[in-house]
């Protein structure tokens, strides 16, 4: 096996698809997570996004509802 055989592409959604999804759903139907840093979050974020900086994710996964789709940026 070549080293690249150990990786596969991660599927992502374009911003327009996310916008459409958020418009169709109510906030209680999904987890929307901003994994950037607090200062970046303060400068602007998606409406209703929950701030969990990437380094804190392992310890804060319990704050997300695993039964709902999760959008991360």
């Amino acid at each position, binding site marked *: *096996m*070549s*080293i*690249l*055989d*150990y*990786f*596969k*592409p*991660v599927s*992502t*959604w*374009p*911003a327009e698809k*996310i*916008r459409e999804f958020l418009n169709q759903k109510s906030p209680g139907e999904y987890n929307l997570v*901003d994994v*950037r*840093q*607090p*200062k*970046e979050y303060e400068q*602007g*974020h*998606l409406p209703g996004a929950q701030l969990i*900086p*990437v*380094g804190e994710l*392992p310890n804060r996964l319990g704050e997300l509802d695993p039964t709902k789709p999760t*959008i*991360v*940026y």
Partner: protein
Amino acid sequence: MEGGIRAWEGFVAEGIPEAGMAYFSPATRAEEMIALAWLLEDGSCRFYESLAKMMEDQETKGLFQNLKRSEENHKTTLWKVYEEISGKTSTPEFPDTVISKEPRGDVMEGGMLVSDALKWSEGKTPEDILQLSMSLETNSYDLYLKMERKVEGRNAKQVFKALSEEEKNHLERLTYLFNKRL
């Protein structure tokens, strides 16, 4: 979300390259996992070494030099574990006999090519480069957590656990400097 917040705001995404690939854990043997980890560490070493040369700011340069040394130590640790598991005392063939070497030396965490990442880094701000490095360390942390869960053998598990903790520490150090520069 593709392109992150800038794409949402209607800008053409010019942020860090998407971590478009993820390790999906087809490795089943401990030797294979160790060889894969070694090759990725090797790629990361090259990346950090080049970044350290590229940086003018002494604090950022120092951090990349430090991370390069740390990834070198990880390679040594992984080699020792390979020898222990394979029962061999001399293993010059490692990791070539375990994983095909192509494109050796040019792949790092997240399946990203070192050459692509360095090309992207040219002319970028230290903040952009720190952000890219944070995404690499996140991938690395994730990889070792997955390997720790999958590998059999108490010692190998402990090694992957220790490596995941060190990668988390790298992520924290990069995050600290990134926040400081914001």
